[in-house]
């Protein structure tokens, strides 16, 4: 296996030089033991083409920077071993997010914008007392919150989502998962009607057409089908019983 010569077909485009149209460029590299796509890209840049742009930070599936389309499917370069791949590997940047150049996209602005839009923080009137003993939370709730919090905001679910690809204002699984997390958090005092206003719409949970590519391709294996359904059910309940809602 280690003697393979791998061919990488990599998407190249730099918005700074729009006169050069987007293209696929091929590179060849000898496979080494335990090689990940992350290692391969670094070697390509060091040995063959210093102009190649891509993002990485942690190389351990924690930071979520190196998400890209690997043979058409979103995944983390650091978590993808070349031994699991065919001889020919196509690499493209994630769709939906702003293209910085080659394989590099700006997921930060997108996530920041949605964090603000969904007010993804604890809403409470209680004044924090640093002297007091921390309030307890029952274990199942804490576990459920933790499960959703494992999201590293890599953007794979967004890149894999047909609705997010077609419609720029769709929140996508990452945010619906995040909202589910606040819905179950006992510290968050937001009434359900307030969530309803933000996610009970076609830009929110009802934009989801249930293709479940997010669930299939999440590198952190967060149970997104269940998370999306949880939000969907809560919103349906609101629509049926909320008299004050618009």
């Amino acid at each position, binding site marked *: 296996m280690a003697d393979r010569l791998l061919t990488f077909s990599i998407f190249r485009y730099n918005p700074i030089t729009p006169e050069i149209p987007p293209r696929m460029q091929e590179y060849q590299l000898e496979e080494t033991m335990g090689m990940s796509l992350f290692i391969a890209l670094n070697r390509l840049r060091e040995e063959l083409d210093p102009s190649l742009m891509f993002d990485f930070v942690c190389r351990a599936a924690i930071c979520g920077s190196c998400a890209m*389309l690997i043979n*058409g*499917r979103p995944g983390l370069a650091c978590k993808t071993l070349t031994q699991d791949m065919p001889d020919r590997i196509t690499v*493209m940047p994630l*769709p939906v997010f702003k293209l910085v150049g080659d394989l590099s996209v700006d997921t930060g602005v997108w996530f920041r914008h949605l964090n603000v839009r969904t007010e993804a923080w604890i809403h409470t009137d209680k004044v924090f007392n640093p002297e007091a003993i921390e309030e307890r939370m029952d274990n199942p709730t804490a576990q459920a919150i933790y499960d959703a919090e494992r999201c590293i905001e890599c953007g794979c679910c967004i890149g*894999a989502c*047909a*609705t997010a*690809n*077609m*419609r720029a204002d769709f929140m996508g699984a990452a945010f619906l998962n995040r909202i589910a997390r606040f819905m179950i958090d006992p510290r968050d005092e937001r009434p359900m009607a307030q969530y*309803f*206003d933000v996610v*009970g*719409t*076609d830009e*929110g949970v*009802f934009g*989801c*057409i*249930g*293709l*479940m*590519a997010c*669930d*299939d*391709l999440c590198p952190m294996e967060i149970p997104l*089908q*269940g998370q*999306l*359904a*949880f939000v*969907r*059910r809560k*919103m*349906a309940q*609101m*629509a*049926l019983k*909320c008299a004050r*809602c*618009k």
Partner: protein
Amino acid sequence: MILQKLLAKSPKLETRLELLELATGLMLFGFLQFHMFAVSSIILGVDAFNRDSARMDEYYLSYIGIPLIILALIVHGLVALRKAPWKIQEMRVFVQHSRRLAHLDTWAWGVQILTALIILVLAATHIWSVLVTWPIEAATSAARIQGGYFSNFVLLIVAAEIHAMVGLYRILVKWSWIHRKKFTNYLVYATIGMVGLGFLTLLVFYFRSIPKGLS
């Protein structure tokens, strides 16, 4: 937030439309399977078929059911159209996305749209041709199928069953009522079974000569 969006946005309406799509979808799914079993009574014989038809007439089931189903078809179609990729760019994005991703569920949505368009045309001609030769009798049905409607029905049965089963799958997945991977197999078997039953019914109608007097 921008003014026109602020004013036009209505979570309540958008959620209710989604629930309407769900309700009409389930209703049409139920109707389709009932309809397939009902017409398959021809396999048991001409008398069985005519008796079923007459009974539904007698209890006014046809006169309440048929308008309701037509209404449900129209409502379901209109509500489901909200999500379809109508702009040429959206359509190209969806096709390119599906080809890159090579993901069965994503392709299945394309199949949903395609079968919906087939049903739109063929179900309309089907309903029309039944209503103009009212009441439903084995002889008129056989005459229709032997008289050139055979290929229409082959396509309609396949399109309707696939659309219904994929639709049911999508509903169950979206509301998370099932374990996705396990359930897929059952739905594939059910689709094959129902299409098989439909074809058998069609063949019986096609090869059986039914004199008008028997009805």
